[in-house]
């Protein structure tokens, strides 16, 4: 053991000296419009709390409703959100975007809090309706000069990951305390929505 203690730093030093003698340009910088676009797209939904709480609420509600809603909502949401994103990109006017986003947190959080169990079509319609507002906000805020495909992939995947977070949290929806915890999370989301609604109106 002692022998190793003595040898290791010397070997490391020797390796370091050899490596330093071979230093070359790393060429590790990402090219403009390549990985940057994916990362900025990925960061977009997770950098706004209003988007985060609504997406997590979709996952939570899906988990609460169980099959088939648990998988229909995450499949349908990105598609409808992309329709909203396309409207935003094309500059089609859609009034009250911020109000719609805040209302989505209130309604979806409220649905989780109250354990609402509407028919699947109605739940999908409600989620799809709010997805339009979130997508529109993303689409209208797409920065110029980015790679469209990578940016789009980034923000669609980030949205899907947020749904997955909601579904994973929703897995505690078993037993009295688990169900209470999920309802409490729904209440917290609805309250956050109220905060954003106040901000949007002010």
């Amino acid at each position, binding site marked *: 053991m002692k022998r190793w203690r003595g040898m290791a730093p010397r070997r490391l030093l*020797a390796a370091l000296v*050899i490596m330093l*003698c*071979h230093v*070359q340009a790393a*060429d590790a910088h990402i090219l403009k419009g390549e990985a940057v676009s994916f990362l900025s797209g990925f960061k977009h939904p997770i950098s706004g709390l209003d988007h985060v709480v609504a997406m997590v609420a979709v996952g939570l509600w899906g988990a609460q409703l169980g*099959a088939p809603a648990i*998988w229909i909502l*995450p*499949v*349908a949401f*990105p*598609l409808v*959100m*992309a*329709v909203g*994103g*396309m*409207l*935003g*990109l*094309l*500059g089609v006017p859609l009034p009250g975007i911020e109000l719609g986003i805040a209302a989505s947190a209130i309604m979806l959080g409220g649905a989780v809090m109250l354990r609402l169990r509407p028919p699947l079509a109605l739940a999908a319609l409600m989620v799809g309706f709010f997805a339009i507002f979130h997508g529109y906000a993303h*689409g209208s805020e*797409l920065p110029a000069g980015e790679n*469209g*495909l*990578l940016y*789009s*992939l980034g923000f*669609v*995947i980030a949205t*899907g990951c947020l749904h997955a977070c909601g579904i994973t949290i929703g897995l505690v929806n078993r037993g009295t305390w688990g169900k209470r915890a999920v309802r409490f999370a729904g209440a917290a989301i609805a309250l956050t929505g109220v905060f954003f609604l106040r901000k949007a109106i002010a």
Partner: protein
Amino acid sequence: MMRRLAGSRLTKLLASAACFLLPAAAEAHLPAIGLGPIYDGVFHLFLSPEDLIPVIALALLCGQRGAPFGRRALWLVPLAWFLGGMFGMFWGSGRGSALTCVSFLAVGGLVAANARISLPVLTVVAALLACFHGYLNGAGINRFDDGTYALLGLALAVFVVVALFASLVVPLRQQWTRVAVRVAGSWIAASGLLMLGWTLHAAR
């Protein structure tokens, strides 16, 4: 014993000295030396999401429908890609970005919907998509500079991607795994829709 240790140290010293005497450019970077046209074709697919993602979507679709569909796509898609590429290389020009978005949307949508399409329909869809993307690749290749080999590399890479993804999906039986594939299709279709919006936005 001492002599052996001294000999060992001398060997290490000589080896270290040799390392210092031999510094040279590694030339491991592709832009510096290139790896030849076949590898250029292979790398083109893996570095171009606009080509790679439709191939993955097609493989997922074939995997969803079962092994016979996967086997059909395994040979058909690379072949159609290569033939489309040859056509594009000799007679093609321009880019079809809006149509690329449509291919994302169509195949991603079919995967998301878990569409129960028949083998002949899938054959037509796969051949058309592969021909179209191959054509776009071929149109960007210089036919006087080993373009055929680059297309061959591309087709080989397409074969590998189809084989990997289709064989990954075919044995999936649990519901959540099948749902995960549909979610992936939904993401691909959504990206296609956004790209379409992006293309129309840029054209305005």
